[in-house]
Structure formats: structure tokens, C-alpha cells
């Protein structure tokens, strides 16, 4: 789950106008997150395989909305998070199953591959394989707000007017855990989930005066924290590590209730036309050296086995500072989101937004 989310409509348009290429050299229309497909990796890939790559940057919601609008057309490979695959697939049928024989499974960390396969299986078919993983938790200016160690600490008077978070589902989930509840366990029980969400909603409404602004994009958050207008916020781990490079006081903190773990995957859109290129891309970027290049630009680690060796020491150090072993064990991995859950969360978020 990554940052900037500006639609590149032009890319979508040109993408759909490109004529079908001969099988040998295809055009891969890739719908992905910022930094998941660095220029250097694309250049290397194009050189080695002869395919060309067109990248459209997006986020989970927009990826799904775009694919839904075209019934799964316009792109050949997409990268939604693993928890957002089965729901939209059952509801809208926007993906096609992955032919695992085309994928070099030995390049993946086995436990992560198995977990992702399990979470993205619909009617016995596997729809996703893992790529990049990471967590969200807290970004804290430890000099100004040393007492913020959990999501609910954002509501303390000590940091009034100087905190920020998104009005999106990770915030609801994080608060629920910090309030001692387990929302993931209630995923399949709409009533129980609604009850949890209502409690979280009340907490967020009480907390609203504390909030400087609800951030929307990663750049916006970085600005708020860097300028000192915000001293603690919910954020992705990489955002905290980037800020840490500029200001050692600021860093990512894995909350006591547990950081929320996500895995971004590879999926094939239902009407993709360049499957061969898509498989080539997956196998290419999962090579340890290439995966390490992506880790260096994105800041997040991948599901590629052995890639850690190639990652810069600095990044490893930051990761270890934020994640002592017990914090890693405490990561709450998102299970697949059942269809219709967003409606419950939406109602709560609307109410929080409307509260004065």
C-alpha cells in the first residue's frame, strides 16, 4: 500500500489504443504503485526480453475501480493488496486465475507464497502471488511526542492539534486493535464487525479535535511531519524511514497493538492481452538482485528469497530499529476482505467526517 495516487488517464487511454503485438515482444501495461517499477528495472527488463512496459501508478481502490470500469481490461498486470482480491473477484470477476506453471516458485519465500495463495483462492483457482510487503503503524517525532506508542495515543491531550491519520480502513482496523478488539476475527460476522466499527467510530469522533488534518496522499503527510505541524501520525513504515533519513528524531514506530501487515501481489486482469509478458515480468522482478533494487527505491522488502543480502545496510538498520523480533511476531496480517465490508466501514467513516 503506497503513496501518490494521481490518475494517469492518458496512460490508460494510450494503453487501450496500442495494437496487439506479436507474441515474442509484447507491451506490458502495468497497473502498480509508485516505486514498484523503477526506471532502471524497466530498462533492464526491456533489454533482456524485448517487451515494452507502460506503467500506470495507482492505489488499491483506484486499481479495482479502473478494472471494474472496463470489466478487467486496459491492463495486463496489476498489483492490489492480497486482502483485496477475493472480494472484488467474487463480486465483479475482474481477474483471471494465475497459471502457476509459468511462475518460478523457487524464487519466492515459501511461507509468504503459501499464505498469499491461500488468501487469493476463489473456487479452487489461485489469483495472486506475493510481491512487496510492509506494514503500517505510527510515524512519530520522538523528541516532541515520546509518549505516542499506540494508535489510541494519537488522541492524547499532549499532542492535541498535532496529529494526523487517514480516514480510511487501516485507521479503523488499527484503532480497533488498540482498543483491545480483534476486527479480523469478526470479518465474517457483519453484526459483530459493525459493533466493533461503531465503537471505533465513537473513539474517532472524540478524537477529531486532536486532528490537524486527515491526510490523503503520502506527500501530504511527509510535508506535514517534516514541517513540524504534525508530530505523530498513522503511516507506512517506509514513510517513517524516509523521514528518519532527514531528521533522526522522526521514525516509524510499530504500535503496541501491532503493526498492520500487508502484501501487495501480482494479479492478471480478466481481459489482459499480454500474459506471457506478465509472467516474464513476475519472474524477472523476483530475482534477488532485481528485488533488492525495488526494495531500495520503494523502501519495502519483497517476497523474493535471498534478496535481503543485496539490500543496503542502512535500510536494514532502520528496519531492525523499528521491528524488534517481538514486534515482527505481533504484526497483524490483513486477511481477505469479504465483499460488502467496505459499506459498513464507509458508513462509520462518513459519520466521523461529518462530526463537528
Amino acid at each position, binding site marked *: 500500500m503506497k503513496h501518490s495516487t494521481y490518475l494517469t488517464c492518458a496512460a490508460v487511454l494510450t494503453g487501450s489504443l496500442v495494437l496487439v503485438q506479436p507474441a515474442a515482444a509484447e507491451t506490458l501495461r502495468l497497473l502498480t504503485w509508485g516505486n514498484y517499477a523503477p526506471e532502471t528495472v524497466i530498462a533492464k527488463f526491456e533489454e533482456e526480453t524485448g517487451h515494452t512496459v507502460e506503467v500506470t501508478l495507482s492505489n488499491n481502490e483506484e486499481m479495482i475501480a479502473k478494472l471494474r470500469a472496463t470489466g478487467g481490461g486496459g491492463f495486463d498486470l496489476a498489483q492490489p493488496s492480497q486482502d483485496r482480491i477475493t472480494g472484488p473477484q*467474487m463480486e465483479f470477476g475482474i481477474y483471471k486465475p494465475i497459471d502457476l506453471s509459468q511462475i518460478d516458485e523457487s524464487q519466492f519465500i515459501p511461507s509468504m507464497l503459501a499464505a498469499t495463495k491461500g488468501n487469493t483462492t476463489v473456487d479452487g483457482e489461485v489469483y495472486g502471488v506475493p510481491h512487496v510487503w510492509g506494514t503500517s503503524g505510527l510515524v512519530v517525532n520522538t523528541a516532541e511526542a515520546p509518549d505516542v506508542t499506540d494508535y489510541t495515543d494519537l488522541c492524547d491531550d499532549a499532542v492535541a492539534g498535532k496529529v494526523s491519520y487517514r480516514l480510511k480502513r487501516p485507521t479503523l482496523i488499527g484503532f480497533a486493535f488498540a482498543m483491545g478488539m480483534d476486527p479480523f476475527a469478526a470479518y465474517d460476522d457483519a453484526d459483530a464487525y459493525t459493533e466493533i466499527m461503531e465503537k471505533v467510530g465513537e473513539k474517532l469522533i472524540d478524537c477529531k479535535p486532536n486532528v490537524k488534518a486527515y491526510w490523503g496522499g503520502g506527500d501530504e503527510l511527509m510535508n506535514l511531519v517534516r*514541517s513540524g505541524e504534525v508530530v505523530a501520525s498513522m503511516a507506512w513504515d517506509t514513510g517513517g524511514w524516509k523521514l528518519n533519513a532527514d531528521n533522526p528524531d522522526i521514525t516509524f514506530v510499530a504500535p503496541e497493538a501491532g503493526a498492520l501487515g500487508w502484501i501487495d501481489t501480482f494479479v492478471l486482469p480478466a481481459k489482459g492481452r499480454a500474459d506471457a509478458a506478465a509472467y516474464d515480468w513476475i519472474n524477472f522482478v523476483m530475482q534477488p538482485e532485481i528485488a533488492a533494487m525495488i526494495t531500495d527505491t520503494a523502501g519495502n522488502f519483497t517476497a523474493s528469497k535471498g534478496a535481503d543480502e543485496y539490500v543496503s545496510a542502512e535500510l536494514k538498520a532502520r528496519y531492525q530499529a523499528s521491528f524488534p523480533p517481538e514486534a515482527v511476531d505481533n504484526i497483524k496480517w490483513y486477511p481477505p476482505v469479504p465483499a460488502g465490508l467496505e459499506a459498513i466501514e464507509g458508513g462509520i467513516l*462518513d459519520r466521523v467526517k*461529518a462530526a463537528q
Partner: protein
Amino acid sequence: MRAGTRLGFVLLIAPLLLWLVLLIVIPHVDLALLSLRERVGVGEYAVSMANYRTFLDEPLYLWTFLRTAVMAVLATAITLVIGFPVSFYIAKIARGRVQSALFLLCLVPFWVSELVRTFGWMILLRETGLISGLLQWLGLTDGPVEMLYNDAAMMVGLVYTSMLFMVVPLVTTLESLDDGIIEAGYDLGGSGPSVLREIIIPHAVPGIVAGSIVVFMLSLGNYLTPTMLGGKDSLWFTELIYSQFIVRFNWELGAAFGFLLLVLSSVIVWAMLRLTGQTLEKTMGSA
């Protein structure tokens, strides 16, 4: 000969018809149908008015809807009040190069994208921003002042974004007013306010209405400015539509919202035309 003219007419009208049907009629019919659908299960839908009922039952949606309408009207009124003297100055008082320079000044903000424009305001108004810094430097305030994330900041952004669309039709109509008519107004005993009331404003009504319609629609449909400058309490109806479509995957409710917005803007524009005794043809002809 007659057949030839007919063919010519058809060829001339074809692009317009295509445009209307493909880009306006079909999407709206689709939107209307979508808004009348209700999700009853995974991948199952039924025809119902549920989405419109949801809108009426949920105070938040209704409140946001009304708030958006009122704020858009307010933004239009403020734009008019600021834009009118500016337009009058450009059309009637400034001459030659000053005139073109002023007109250009109104245009300059549109050389950059709306996003950059809005960021510009954020840089000015934020707590660590220019204005706050200036006030502290002047010793007028003790600490940083937050001017962002409130309705006033949002209003400033909306007015700024809309100004050109008010000024252009106003300048056009005011330029068409013979200077002699204004002078005659004074000559026959009129004072400044009475000339403005009885002569200039009645003459400028088509321009005022045209500008107001455009500004109102732009404000009502604006997404970036209210979201970015309005902050945590912005509550703008287009935001609701966006979140229904993109975040909640609830296209049905989003479509219903979209339709309601269309109805709202149509009703307000119609009321505005009725109130001023203008027709759409007359107004758009003047702009």
C-alpha cells in the same frame, strides 16, 4: 440540390450529435440505470429506489448536499461581488496596454494546473506558511497561525479558481455598454449608485447570469479545492461521490449521488434564470 443541402446539414451536425449522444446522453442514461440498482447479494442486483432512500435517510448525505449547494451559491456571490468592479475597471476604465495586462493577470493562474494552484494556497495559509510567518515576524501574533483547513480557506480557493470565469463574460457585456449611456445616466441627474443600479447592472445582467452559472457549476463540481483546503471538515458532495465510486465500490449509490447533483445544479440554474428573467439562449449568447 435539395438532397445536397440535406447531406451537408447532416455532415455538419453529425459531430455535434455524436458528441452529445456518446459523451452526454449515454453516460447519463447509464448513470440513471445504475442509480436504480440495488445490490442484493454477491453479483446480484435488483431494480429499486434504495439508493435514493439511503440519501434521504442518512442525515450526513442530505446535510452535505445542502451545505455544498449553499457554499457554492455563496462562492458564486462572493466571486460576483469581487469580479464586478474588477471587470468594470478592465472594460471601462483601463485603456490599451493596462487593459490587456489586467486581463492577462486574471488568466495567469490558469497557466498552472488546479493542483498546483491549490498547493500554492496551502503554502501561503499553512501553519508554517508564508502568511503565518509574516504575521509572527511583524509581531502581530505570538505563535504560528493555522489558516488552512476551514471553510474560509475553502471559500478563498473556490473564489480564486472561479474568478476568470466570472470576469470574462462580465467584461464582454460591460464592453458592449456604450460609454455614452453611462454618461447620459450622470448627465440626466443620476448619481454613482443610481447609475449602477438602473443602467450598468441591468445592462450587465446577461453577463452576470452567464458568469454566475459557470462559477456555480464549477464550484459545485469542484473536488480538489474543497478536499485540500477544507481539511477534516470540508464535507463536499463531490467527495462523497468519489468515495462511493472509488473507495466503497458502491457505484450504485455514487450514481444516485451524481444524479442528484445534476438535478440540484439544474434546479438552481433554472431558478437563477427565472429570477432574473433571462433565457439560457440569451445568456449564453452574451458570454
